[in-house]
Structure formats: C-alpha cells, structure tokens
C-alpha cells in the first residue's frame, strides 16, 4: 500500500516488545486508512513536515530579533504572528509565546504533564525534555537542573519556569552574546542552539 509497509530491521528482531508496538502502529494505520479516517498521502506529507522542522528555524527567528528591534518587539508581542513573517506557521490554533532573557531574568521551558514543545520552530523535542526527571524537577529545582546542563546562574538572576500546554508553547529568546557586533544575521543564527531556546543553556560567545 505504501513504501512504509515493508518490514525493516526493527521488526521481528531483538526484543519482542518493541516489535509488537511497531506491528500495532502498522495495524492501526492500515485500519484507519481503510476507513477513510486518514489518507496515506496525508501521512506522507506529515512525515515531510516533521522532517522539515528543525531548531534552525528557531535560530533564524532569534537572530532576526537580535538585529531588528522592530521585529523583536513584534515577536515578544505575538510570537505566532511574528514567526509567520519568516514563513514558520503554527498549527491548530497553538499560541507561541516568546520569553526574553535579560541580565536580570533567565527563562526555562518545560512541559510537566507530557511533552508540549514549540515544534514548528524547534522540531521534535529531545529525549531528555520528555524524561521523567526533567519534567518533575524543572519547576521546583530549576537551578540544580540548569547546573546539570552546565549553566550556573548568579544568585541575583531571577529564574522563571514556564510550564507548556497543548495551546501555549514557549520559545526562549536568549541574550545575544558579547563580542558579536561584527557578525551578520546568518552568522548569528549559527550561534543559537536548541538548548538555549529551551532555556537550559545560554548562547556562548564564539571563539
């Protein structure tokens, strides 16, 4: 039916448990296609969309905000609308809220209930973001969580933790590092990491 139907290495090899869940995915997909509830074409397109999303999109948004004060103001006022200016579309009425890091305030994003994440600008979340440890501890012990990522903040920097929901996704606008006045927008985008946009790290000065 589709190119995805043939078995690959994970099927029937090694643990029986993962094999079963993969079979279940195939079974559900086939039944749902036969009932006309999803189409093979829509699934193929969605995989293309998933493949097209990466933190590079968020990096472009951040770099633009660093070089264009008017864009930054629009981004902080309405993250979803400002991202659309750069061709990044949110889905399903999801609101993107952009949080600005400053010398006084450091923002950190988590989803304690599941794995809500600003996928249109960052792609899919890393495994640690979905882990029990991160989801449990980030809201109560953010400084020790940050320290585990090598981020040690001075005591006088306020840490704000933002718990995402299906309808409200957060993106951190990191501080532009010192010594980057000569860099153009593309070079700046190259400095911005996924982890800095989740808020577990800061953007380091290059070199």
């Amino acid at each position, binding site marked *: 039916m589709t190119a995805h139907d043939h078995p690959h290495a*994970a099927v*029937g090899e090694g643990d029986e448990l993962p094999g*079963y869940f993969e079979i*279940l995915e*195939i079974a*559900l997909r086939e039944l*749902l296609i036969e009932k006309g509830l999803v189409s093979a074409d829509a*699934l193929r397109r969605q995989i293309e969309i998933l493949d097209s999303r990466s933190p590079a999109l968020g990096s472009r948004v951040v770099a633009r905000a660093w070089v264009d004060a008017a864009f930054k103001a629009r981004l902080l006022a309405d993250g979803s609308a400002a991202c659309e200016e750069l061709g990044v579309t949110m889905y399903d009425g999801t609101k993107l809220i952009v949080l600005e890091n400053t010398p006084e305030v450091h923002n950190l994003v988590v989803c*304690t*209930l599941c794995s809500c994440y600003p996928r249109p600008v960052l792609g899919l979340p890393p495994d640690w973001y979905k882990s029990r440890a991160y989801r449990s501890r980030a809201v109560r012990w953010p400084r020790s969580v940050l320290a585990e990522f090598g981020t040690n903040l001075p005591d006088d920097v306020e840490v704000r933790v933002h718990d995402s929901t299906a309808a409200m996704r957060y993106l951190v606008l990191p501080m532009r590092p010192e010594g980057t006045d000569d860099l153009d927008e593309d070079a700046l985008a190259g400095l911005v990491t996924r982890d800095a946009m989740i808020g577990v790290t800061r953007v380091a000065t290059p070199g």
Partner: protein
Amino acid sequence: MTGADDLIRRGANDLGGLPAEPIVISDHELLPWEKRCHALLDVLAENRVVNTEEKRRGIDDLGSELLGKLTYYEKWVLAASNVLMQKGVLTSDEIAQRVEAVQDRLGMAR
C-alpha cells in the same frame, strides 16, 4: 508526597514538582516506525479523530507501571489504540485480527 492522598490528587502523568533522579541528557534519531506513529497521531488530530488532550488522557490511563516501562512512542501507539477503541472508531477484534495479519504477512511467529 508519596502518601495515598497524593496518589488520588495526581494523575500518573502529573509529575511537576516531584523529586527525581539527575537528568540524563539523552537524545536519539526517531526510528522510522516512531516517526510514522508521530505523523499518524498528528493527522488524527488534524482530522478531528483524536485530539491532543484525548491522546494525553490515553497515556495517563496506561497507569504508572506501563508509563515507567514503555518508551515514548510505545506509550503513544498503545494510548492511541485504546482511545480509538473507547471512541468506537475501531473495535478490539479489528485491531487484534489486523495485528495477527500483519505478523503473518511479515513471517513472524505469534
């Protein structure tokens, strides 16, 4: 925090503020079936068959033992299967028969 009253107040997925081990900073490229599973749930949401909240409730309802043992997309696909049955979209017989048919097709012992 670990008393019986807390078990009643908190859903199995409601982890915020609980003590936990140090974070293992890990990631992996999605396996092909994991990506297909993600796409399937996205399209089910887009087509208003199963929405994000139903999916999350389905995962909650797996209970803490399965939540602790299964991988992320194993939870997703099992929750999707349960929610689709609960909503009358698919029957348990349909799913079981198709799972067997797929296993047969792939030459797997069952």
